[in-house]
């Protein structure tokens, strides 16, 4: 053992051997210390034994199993997205019907602060604009007297399904 420096702890020696610490004064000591050298040889032999043991263990080929798992997961996501698109469809349709039916009444309700009325008016104008645009489209596709809320609902269903399908195609 070197006189200049005490033997470092096994933890330090292992860290040094693993290349996880800078070469310090302890590193200079290790080279000339039989006790440290013996420890290092033992650790290296153990490392070799571990590697040999694990090298000997046969590993199965899991490629096809992983591929099947990925396909199954993709199908699960697809059906979830499909369900979500239907829920969104119902929600959007319901919200549009509610807005179309009740917003004008809300705006005319008395004792509303001016800001709230302005916001509601803007939302109402937007809903009306969407409704009129959809009505125009519906009138072009189905000439006559279109039943606006059901048509809006159908168009909303188509729109949301379109978005949903685009998302599904990415899966």
């Amino acid at each position, binding site marked *: 053992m070197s006189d200049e420096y005490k033997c470092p*702890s*096994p*933890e330090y020696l*292992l*860290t040094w051997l*693993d290349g*996880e610490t800078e070469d310090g004064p302890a590193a200079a000591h290790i080279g000339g210390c039989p006790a440290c050298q013996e420890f290092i040889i*033992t*650790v290296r032999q*153990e*490392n070799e*034994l*571990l*590697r*040999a*043991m*694990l090298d*000997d*263990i*046969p*590993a*199965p*080929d*899991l*490629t096809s*199993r*992983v*591929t099947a*798992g*990925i396909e199954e*997961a993709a199908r699960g996501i697809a059906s979830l997205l499909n369900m979500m698109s239907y829920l969104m469809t119902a929600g959007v349709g319901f919200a549009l019907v509610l807005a179309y039916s009740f917003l004008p009444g809300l705006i005319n309700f008395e004792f509303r602060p001016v800001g709230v009325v302005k916001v509601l008016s803007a939302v109402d104008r937007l809903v009306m604009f969407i409704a009129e645009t959809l009505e125009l489209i519906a009138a072009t596709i189905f000439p006559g007297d279109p039943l606006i809320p059901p048509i809006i609902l159908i168009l909303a269903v188509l729109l949301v399904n379109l978005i949903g399908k685009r998302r599904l195609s990415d899966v």
Partner: protein
Amino acid sequence: MRPDCTDSEIVTEILNGRKEGFTELVERYQQAAYKMALVVLRHRADAEDAVSEAFVKAYAALPRCRDGTNFKSWLLKIAYNCCHDILRKRAMTGKYTDPGPTEAAAHEPGPLDTVIEFEDKQALWSALAQIGPEDRSAVVMKYYHGLSYRDIAAALNWPLGTVASRLARSREKLRGILKGGDNQ
């Protein structure tokens, strides 16, 4: 297999739409993940389940494996988490008993093995059962897969300083067991 392609090149290809490239990553790392899972779980069927699940999860999370991420250590982290889930289920059911070296390691002596070498390997396998699953995985990650302390800390959610001390303690315990004491 294209050995000249780096992992991050393959990951980029997959993210750009060449999804079949993932098979290359599976072929490249299934053995590494399986051997770690087997050491942690000590049961072949469970190790296969954990590794398959890890690859499926890795595929789903691949966009998060950005440039600069070491795919191998990232995958081993996912694989360890899958092993951890299986260990938790075992703890809940309480049905697991270690099958011993014949079921878990299940290797015959190779043509180059001497009897002593084979017995040493069996002794090491049995000794590994006496340290915790987390410590076992850290030992395999470091001394078989060559991961850095930083990667091990990230994989096992340990503080960086803990890696050195736990590895040293595990090694000391294994050494004690191999020398004949139980060193509990």
